[in-house]
């Protein structure tokens, strides 16, 4: 993980990497039922923070 990832341009510069990228792109979706309910997590988190710190 790196902060610089947010800023720098990420490029694929060689054929081998293109092939790997293509392989992943054309592979079946791995989407499954999300393990967490994002909306619920945010809603309950904000509620708990407000309760604790009266935001």
């Amino acid at each position, binding site marked *: *993980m790196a902060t610089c990832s947010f800023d720098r341009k990420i490029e694929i510069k060689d054929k*081998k990497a293109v092939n790997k990228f293509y392989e992943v*792109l054309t592979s079946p979706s791995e989407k499954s039922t999300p393990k967490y309910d994002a909306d619920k997590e945010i809603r309950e988190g904000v509620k708990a923070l407000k309760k604790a710190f009266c935001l």
Partner: protein
Amino acid sequence: MIKSFDSFSCPKNKDVADFLTNKCIDFEKRNKSRTYIIIDNEKLEQKELSILGYFSLALKSLTIYNELVSPTLRKKMDGFCTEANDFETFLIGQLGRNNSVTNKELPGKDILNMATSFIDRAQEFVGGRVIMIDCEDNKKIIAFYEANNFKYIQKHNTKENLIQMIKTI
């Protein structure tokens, strides 16, 4: 709240703690990324903000050099366009656990699952096919992401010694 960010430490990768302490709020204000913190609920009930882990998400383009791909392959990759150079991805730019928390208490897999659940939600609204991480070239880290269905793409020859891994959504 910002004071609590100082209690987050990650000696194995100081950039992870530095981002949370010094940069994430600025990035949030500029809409460059969104950071989600995982809080100890029991301590929060005692009005103590204890950060167990966090992750930051952003949008990122992955650019493919023109000469590397034929228009036909480009169309196959993009789905429509023979001139597509940029492929939009969801970037997990930061993901970390507080050093004071054990893997048993908060497995890295759980933080990653939470991050991907949030990306899934964003994808429902805006589309997108790929999640990308830009991480240290470290066997243990690579093994962790591979175990979670990410595939190694390439290494970047930069001073940060980073690699890219991706997975489809």
